[in-house]
């Protein structure tokens, strides 16, 4: 009798698991307008943008090139093109974010998509449960794209494997933040005319930084030399094996680099014992004007924001002539427009036309 019951349980389980196990091939071309190109072509970025680790240099270059024509849209008096008209996008933020969420929202609105913002929070277990249920609910509502930020590494990939909609990772735990990596690449390319051959050093808390991981992959793929600098307590063990140079002193990093990308130091790292004090961190690792003045060349200064002035970066450096920190923010909108456009199946060579709206 119990055996029968057990078999019943098994079959019930099989039924209940069905929607979770369904891994459909990517079908983002469903319902595209002709302006976005041929419905049968394979989208150039695949279904989702989860990270830069698995993108090819050609795909990265394509996003950067596609972002170029979109930059101009934000300079118009009427900042709106019809490229994503009729598309519904959900911005699903399980973690507080102002800059990234607004940047995505502007990108979506300037492409004429319909957007909904969802902010969720709760304990970590609740988040896990919510994530599965959220995936099912989004699937049921037939939305076209999801932009997700989540405190757990892998959350974007988790969602992407469970829904047909395109998923864009807007930061998952300590894993990746690919649109930040792309906008950093675009900003470097704008400033230096190239990425290839440049020496770019990431300074600070690489261990906990998704920005650092996306930068490392993107920069390496685009031919840059990558350095990392910070205390060992804030470096993943074995980071050199990814193909980056390791600096333990900020002076050495400054002497080596063409570009410094200064990472935000989360103030709770001090409470967790990774550094003794913010004061000492600034004295030992702070990117200060005095240190930069000793450099053999003028270094381009970047920061993904939000900045802790006087912690990881000197205000005079952040506001100085070589800072491109606000250019990063501007480029963020263009890069995100490019990513949304390409994931929706837009053809890169039509980006110029799409933004004009002539072919809609």
């Amino acid at each position: 009798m119990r055996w029968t019951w057990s078999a019943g349980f098994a079959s019930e389980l099989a039924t209940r698991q069905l929607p979770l196990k369904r891994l459909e091939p990517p079908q983002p071309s469903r319902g595209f307008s002709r302006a976005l190109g041929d419905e049968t072509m394979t989208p150039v970025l695949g279904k989702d943008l989860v990270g830069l680790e698995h993108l090819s240099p050609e795909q990265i270059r394509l996003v950067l090139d596609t972002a170029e024509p979109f930059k101009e849209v934000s300079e118009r008096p009427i900042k709106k093109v019809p490229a994503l008209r009729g598309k519904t996008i959900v911005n699903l933020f399980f973690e507080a974010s102002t800059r990234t969420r607004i940047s995505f929202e502007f990108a979506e609105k300037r492409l004429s998509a319909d957007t909904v913002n969802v902010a969720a929070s709760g304990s970590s277990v609740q988040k896990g449960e919510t994530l599965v249920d959220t995936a099912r609910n989004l699937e049921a509502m037939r939305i076209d794209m999801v932009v997700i930020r989540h405190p757990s590494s892998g959350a974007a990939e988790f969602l992407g494997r469970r829904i047909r909609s395109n998923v864009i990772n807007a930061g998952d735990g300590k894993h990746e933040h690919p649109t930040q990596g792309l906008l950093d690449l675009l900003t470097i390319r704008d400033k230096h005319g190239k990425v290839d051959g440049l020496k770019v050093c990431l300074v600070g808390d690489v261990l906990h930084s998704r920005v650092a991981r996306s930068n490392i992959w993107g920069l390496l793929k685009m031919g840059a030399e990558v350095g990392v600098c910070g205390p060992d307590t804030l470096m993943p063990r074995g980071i050199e094996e990814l193909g980056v140079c390791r600096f333990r002193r900020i002076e050495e990093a400054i002497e080596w680099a063409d570009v410094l990308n200064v990472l935000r130091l989360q103030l709770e790292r001090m409470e967790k014992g990774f550094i003794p004090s913010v004061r000492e961190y600034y004295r030992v690792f702070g990117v200060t004007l005095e240190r930069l003045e000793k450099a053999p060349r003028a270094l381009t200064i970047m920061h993904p924001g939000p900045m802790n002035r006087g912690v990881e970066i000197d205000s005079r450096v952040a506001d100085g002539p070589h800072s491109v920190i606000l250019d990063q923010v501007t480029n963020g909108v263009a890069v995100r427009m490019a990513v949304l456009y390409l994931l929706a199946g837009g053809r890169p060579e039509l980006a110029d036309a799409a933004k004009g709206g002539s072919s809609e």
Partner: protein
Amino acid sequence: MNRALVLRGGRVIDPSRNLDEPADVLIQDGKVAGVGRGLGAPDGAEVRDVRDRVVAPGLVDVHVHLREPGNEDVETIATGARAAAAGGFTAVCAMPNTDPVTDNQAAVGFIVRQSVRAGLTRVYPIGAISVGQKGERLSEFGEMVGAGAVAVSDDGKPVVSSHLMRTALEYARTFGIPVADHCEEPTLADAGVMHEGLVSARLGLKGIPAAAEEIMVARDALLAGLTGGHVHLCHISTRGSVELIRRAKEEGIRVTAEVTPHHLTLTDRACERYDTHAKMNPPLREAADVAALRAALKEGVVDCIASDHAPHAYDAKEAAFDDAPFGIVGLETAFGVAHTELVLSGILTLPELIHRMSTAPAAAFGLPGGTLAPGAPADVLVLDLTDSWTVDPAAFCSKSRNTPFAGRALTGRAVLTLVGGKVVHQADAPVAQ
């Protein structure tokens, strides 16, 4: 009493007596009555032709989680015992991290009673080291042993206090039971979810360094040396632990150790793509660790294989990696995985594997079984080593399906499992209860 049974013409492997030869096995009154060629069948005896099969003492697993009491939706003692029987195990030891914790004689007696009621694989209770597994006060070892406990452990949690570990090792000596420890230095492991290494760096997941295990292995060996107690180290996972155990054994310290089939066959790369079925504690380590663990098992530095069978609800693992629980089920895949990966690849001989999965664990925990010596309980296993099968979690007898081996092609499985002479599993006809 059951009819007598003759298993005719199999390859009989009994590591307890260095036996590996074609022979018949006679089972009478629940005991092994004889092993030899051309044994006559008593009147009315059932004779089974087991030519081309291996007859061995039933497998013994000193580390399983059966979730009863407290989480019967996920596993019960009966379903766990059925899964064990299907996997060829005739005895398993149930860890005490139940709800409520198995930390007193009544709770221990409950598990014994449920095991007897199920009438399948023998389930031996392990009592908690500390009351409520809180790591503070010793549980009543004497009463728990009186009720049937065969060891004590706070598994699931490490014994953080070295003083508590010391007193547990000392106090357990009176009762002749091992103290089994889950070796993990909690401040170092902190909120880690996988092995600390290059893969964790890439995935952005918090790592558990090998040192978190090795610090506690070293401490436990030192305390076993200090007290003369018997420490059993659960699910060893690092090459550093292997070296520490080797040294302790050379010094004559009473230490035994187990390793799981997954730590012998998988690495941290299984966590790529955030596969939560590869999330376990201790975490899957690196290829060099797997190689060291295999060599240690061959040499006997690590004594035995234990499954660390840890059932979880199907939807608990459907979560972000950080949020999923640790652990996988293993009773029904343990032999197939070990045989395919260790014997067919030439690392262990079949008698060595049977030794590490039956005779050695029985000896480490002082359990009956692990032998086909005449007079021993007829806990007997018949294996088909040519049976190639594919792991299908939906077909598990366990209530849970959380395994990283789904879809894996394996060779070798139990076709007949006898406990005390009674058939508890038959491959061609599942035993209804």
